């Protein structure tokens, strides 16, 4: 069956195409519209998916939406009654969103896709089943415990399920307003970052602080039971009654105001980040432990926004609780486009599941691809100055430039699906350069200086650099840099709250032989790369190893702050020209910055992207 899966209208809209259970294509709408976390109907992502099948929309058997609008309406209505009559304004504000498209989704999609496939009626799949299916079906496991953790979907915020062959059952759930996702988002908001955007920044900030507020959080904000279930004390949260996450009671509890976005980050906010990270790790561990007991399975799969917390994931993996774990790379709502389509294939159409011993996610390279011919046509049209190299010459050249501390934009193969750049649309650099983290943050990405960068390492060399016990192809696990590679920094004193912290001085400390990818606590968000998933990217790292003896490179997403990751050669070229990147490699074409003509623009490009 050819099934189109749709995730839309909340955040991170996306579409996927699954044919007889094989994931053929998947893409987020933001990559096409250039609007981060775009929640609109994924018209462009759908068009891309339909372009990947002979016959286009005529070949589609069914269209599946990832959320049951009636259950969501029920929750919204209940919440309206709950908060009335004092908070009519909230209802007025959320009302349009609820009724403009969501409950008319079948009409809206019919406008785009036509008759909604041969089946002729829209199928809707429950939100957490979509998450669960996105985690279980592409996994390499025949059976597994399934844990989904997110803000809210319909009523559920957290579920435990069990999958075996084609069947998935949800066994337990925790309902709104008790939500780990919303708890984490409340701290994201309070620390001055944007909800639904800045959660990974909070995670990156945590190692700079101490978990001094941990006790305060578990005594006042969340009641954690032994089996991982939990209750939130809504007296401290504002998301039920206002359009913000926290209010005065939260400020009073911690004795500080909400940090104003873009203001200097002081020690108490670092401590808050560290404290909530500790709480999340504790709850998530208890939940997966209970899932292990409940299902009896030795394998675990996870999805939902909280499953992107790679520090918590790494701890679960190292705990030995499960023989193996697999996490959907597009763990947020975008991944539900895949999950809902696969669930329809196996539950509705009773398809036979094919299990790949690696996984069926295809390295998450599921987006648009541009051939050398298409790239050449673009470069010619734009009067760009370029060089063409065969791969045998190209990879050593890239390695040499990296060794010279040049920063390189890489554009090859299909675009990644999910929030991580995995070598298809990446900016790469030398991890051994001690100033590289600050340089990349401030001159290339234009983002906060504290944010760490991830290493991409040859799979066979991973254990030489990191304390990692399994492969991590999707950059979803954090592991420590090997002790023997670490340095004791000169400036390593604990940050006190009175002190005016020089973050740059802290960040520029050489903490290991690969400082640009070593976080302040010696951790790293590792991507292991092998020749079968992405041979092009593998060859680059291999050539760098031959050039320098180091089998690791810096890998960060190809974008600037607030911009979605680049999709097309044009996006890549523009991003390259806007930043201090030195070299751009588009498949086999190379562009050197100083050779390029000036990019003439009518306005300041920085105004195009809202800061995230």
């Amino acid at each position, binding site marked *: 069956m050819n099934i189109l899966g749709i995730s839309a209208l909340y955040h991170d809209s996306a579409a996927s195409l699954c044919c007889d259970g094989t994931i053929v294509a998947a893409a987020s709408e933001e990559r096409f519209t250039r609007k981060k976390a775009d929640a609109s109907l994924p018209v462009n992502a759908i068009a891309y998916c339909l372009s990947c099948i002979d016959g286009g929309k005529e070949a589609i058997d069914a269209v*599946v939406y990832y959320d049951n*609008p009636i259950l969501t309406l029920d929750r919204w209505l209940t919440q309206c*009654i709950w908060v009335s*009559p004092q908070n009519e304004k909230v*209802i007025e504000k959320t*009302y349009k969103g609820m009724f403009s498209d969501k409950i008319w989704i079948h009409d809206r999609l019919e406008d785009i896709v036509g008759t909604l496939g041969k089946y002729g009626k829209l199928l809707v799949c*429950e939100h957490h089943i979509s998450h669960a299916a996105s985690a279980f079906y592409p996994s390499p496991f025949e059976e597994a415990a399934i844990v989904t953790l997110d803000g809210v979907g319909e009523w559920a915020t957290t579920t435990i399920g069990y999958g075996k062959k084609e069947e998935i*059952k949800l066994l337990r759930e925790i309902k709104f307003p008790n939500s780990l996702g919303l708890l984490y988002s409340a701290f994201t908001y309070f620390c001055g970052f944007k909800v639904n955007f800045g959660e990974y920044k909070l995670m990156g900030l945590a190692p700079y602080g101490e978990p001094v507020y941990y006790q305060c959080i578990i005594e006042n904000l969340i009641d954690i*039971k032994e089996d991982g*279930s939990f209750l939130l004390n809504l007296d401290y949260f504002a998301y039920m009654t206002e359009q913000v996450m926290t209010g005065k009671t939260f400020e009073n509890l911690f004795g500080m105001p909400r940090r104003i976005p873009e203001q200097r980050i002081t020690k108490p906010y670092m401590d808050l980040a560290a404290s909530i990270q500790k709480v999340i790790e504790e709850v998530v561990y208890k939940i997966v432990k209970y899932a292990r007991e409940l299902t009896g399975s030795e394998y675990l799969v996870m999805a939902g926004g909280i499953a992107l917390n790679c520090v918590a994931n790494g701890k679960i993996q190292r705990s030995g609780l499960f023989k193996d774990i697999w996490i959907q790379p597009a763990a947020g709502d975008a991944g539900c486009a895949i999950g809902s389509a696969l669930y329809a294939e196996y539950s509705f159409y009773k398809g036979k599941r094919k299990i790949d011993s690696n996984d069926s996610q295809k390295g998450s390279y599921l987006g648009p691809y541009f051939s050398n011919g298409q790239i050449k046509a673009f470069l010619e049209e734009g009067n760009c100055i370029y060089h063409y190299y065969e791969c045998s010459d190209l990879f050593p050249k890239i390695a040499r430039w990296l060794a010279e501390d040049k920063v390189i934009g890489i554009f090859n193969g299909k675009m990644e699906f999910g929030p991580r750049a995995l070598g298809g649309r990446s900016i790469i650099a030398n991890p051994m350069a001690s100033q590289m983290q600050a340089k990349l943050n401030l001159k290339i990405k234009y983002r906060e200086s504290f944010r760490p960068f991830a290493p991409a390492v040859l799979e066979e060399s991973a254990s030489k650099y990191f304390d990692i016990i399994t492969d991590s192809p999707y950059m979803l696990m954090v592991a420590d840099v090997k002790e023997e590679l670490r340095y004791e920094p000169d400036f390593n004193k604990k940050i006190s709250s009175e002190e005016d912290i020089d973050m740059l001085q802290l960040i520029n400390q050489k903490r290991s032989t690969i400082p640009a990818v070593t976080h302040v606590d010696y951790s790293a968000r590792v991507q292991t790369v092998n020749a079968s998933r992405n041979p092009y990217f593998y060859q680059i790292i291999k050539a760098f190893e031959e050039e320098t003896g180091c089998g690791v490179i810096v890998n960060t997403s190809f974008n600037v702050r607030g911009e979605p990751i680049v999709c097309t050669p044009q996006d890549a070229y523009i991003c390259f020209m806007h930043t201090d990147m030195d070299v751009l490699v588009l498949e086999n074409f190379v562009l050197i910055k100083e050779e390029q003509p000036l990019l003439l623009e009518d306005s300041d490009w920085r105004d195009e992207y809202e800061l995230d």
Partner: protein
Amino acid sequence: MNLIDTREMELIKAIADKIHKLHSLEETGSPYKNEKSRTSCWEIRREGQKAMEIMPYYFQSPVELQDMLTQVFKEGLNMDFILPVTVAAFKQRKDTAIKDEVSPYIYEF
């Protein structure tokens, strides 16, 4: 009221009941304090939770629901008022109604 069939009436009562329960909750205090003594907060997930049981029909138009809610807020949680307003707000729209699940957790829309 004469235009409402038995099934619709049952559903309207179910919604009114929900409003009543929420109202009761306000009187008994915070669920956090009430439920702190529980050893587990997991709920057992029913297989194939039916959307039909909760709300089978769309409102005829979004405006009707908005009107209903506005009036509910104005009047407060008065059951004598809520029931007829709710009844008035519901209209049958079987052509676009969500159907019973066609497979566990998946529905026709």
